[in-house]
């Protein structure tokens, strides 16, 4: 299977669009940008793709294109890279590409936060509650919930950095 190739661009697209989108989504955290970036990857990558490229080569090439596309996206929006796509691909299989330790790291960081910080982040980020709803659940004012949320992110970011 290592030297197998795709029959046409259509097959390349069908087989890879999901993971490219998921990868981009995990790097920008919102749907409209993830869609634009996914589109850019395929618009850029498909045309110059070699006919004879094997499946792993195609995957690697798509990932490298995604890496470049994301980097220029961040340069444009923030003047610096906020998130990156790593180069270390031991095995270019789809599973490998999809695997990320980010969700685990998030969970780990959350457990180390003080209870109220953990709670506000879970409610807002993981369970999609509005500030008002989250404040209601925690029995604090909306203003209070906003402050809690901001401090919680600051602390989580610090822990994230220390963990690296």
């Amino acid at each position, binding site marked *: 299977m290592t030297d197998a190739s795709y029959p046409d661009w259509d097959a390349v697209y069908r087989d890879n669009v999901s993971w490219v*989108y998921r990868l981009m989504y995990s790097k920008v955290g*919102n749907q409209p940008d993830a869609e634009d970036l996914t589109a850019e990857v395929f618009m850029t990558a498909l045309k110059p793709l070699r006919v004879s490229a094997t499946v792993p080569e195609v995957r690697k090439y798509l990932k490298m294109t995604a890496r470049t596309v994301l980097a220029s996206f961040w340069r444009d929006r923030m003047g610096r890279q906020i998130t990156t796509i790593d180069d270390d691909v031991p095995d270019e299989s789809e599973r490998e590409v999809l695997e990320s330790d980010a969700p685990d790291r998030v969970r780990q960081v959350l457990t180390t936060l003080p209870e109220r910080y953990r709670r506000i982040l879970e409610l807002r980020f993981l369970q999609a509650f509005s500030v008002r709803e989250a404040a209601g659940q925690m029995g604090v004012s909306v203003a209070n919930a906003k402050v809690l949320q901001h401090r919680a*992110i600051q602390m989580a970011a610090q822990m994230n950095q220390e963990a690296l």
Partner: protein
Amino acid sequence: MSGRPVRRFVDGLLQGRRIARARPDDVEAQEMKTAIEMRAARTGSDSPREDFVTDLHRRLAEQMGDAPQGESRSSWGPSGTRRQVVIGTGLAAASAATGIVVGRNLLAPPRAPTEASPPAQGVLDPNAGAWHAVGASADLPKGGAMAFDLGSVNGFVHRADAKVEAVSGVCTHQGCKLWLDAPDSRLRCPCHSTSFSLEGETVTHQLPTAPPPLPKFEVREINGVIEVLAPTKPA
């Protein structure tokens, strides 16, 4: 100390908006990164929208100067050979676990196929058919479903109201065997996360075009036995 840029960034992120321009310092950049990771960790929010996948496929077809569904008109060489079909299926199977998890955890309502007029649902009508027993009526309660495999065909019977119905157990996209997700009353394809209702209608898919519905079998119940009309066994 970080402040307003990060707040604005996080507000936008939690509202699902595009990322706005800013010029964060090191600390703020780290906080933004953390916020993105937390947002992206929300279960079931990372599947591409079907409309997006279809639309991008159309745009790419224009760019590549190809007909939208030109699978057999490939400029890359002959297609549809056995080898290529096998490759396609194998690759997709590698990511099947992910697809299933996403399908079951979606917070958003399932996306219905967008095609205006999906292909009609056919009834399997073999040249030489016979009634084959697939199970006892008593084993199939109202609302229940069960799998059967007759060798030449396999599928799932279910009881809607009083009537028993049966549909094929093979995905109409590339022929992968469906599995019964009983709690959700869905038949799911391990290859491309397509799902069908127990009646055989296509419910969700991530493909550029919706696969046709599953063919139905003729079914009857006689003396407490459920029978399906299937091809006679080869002599």
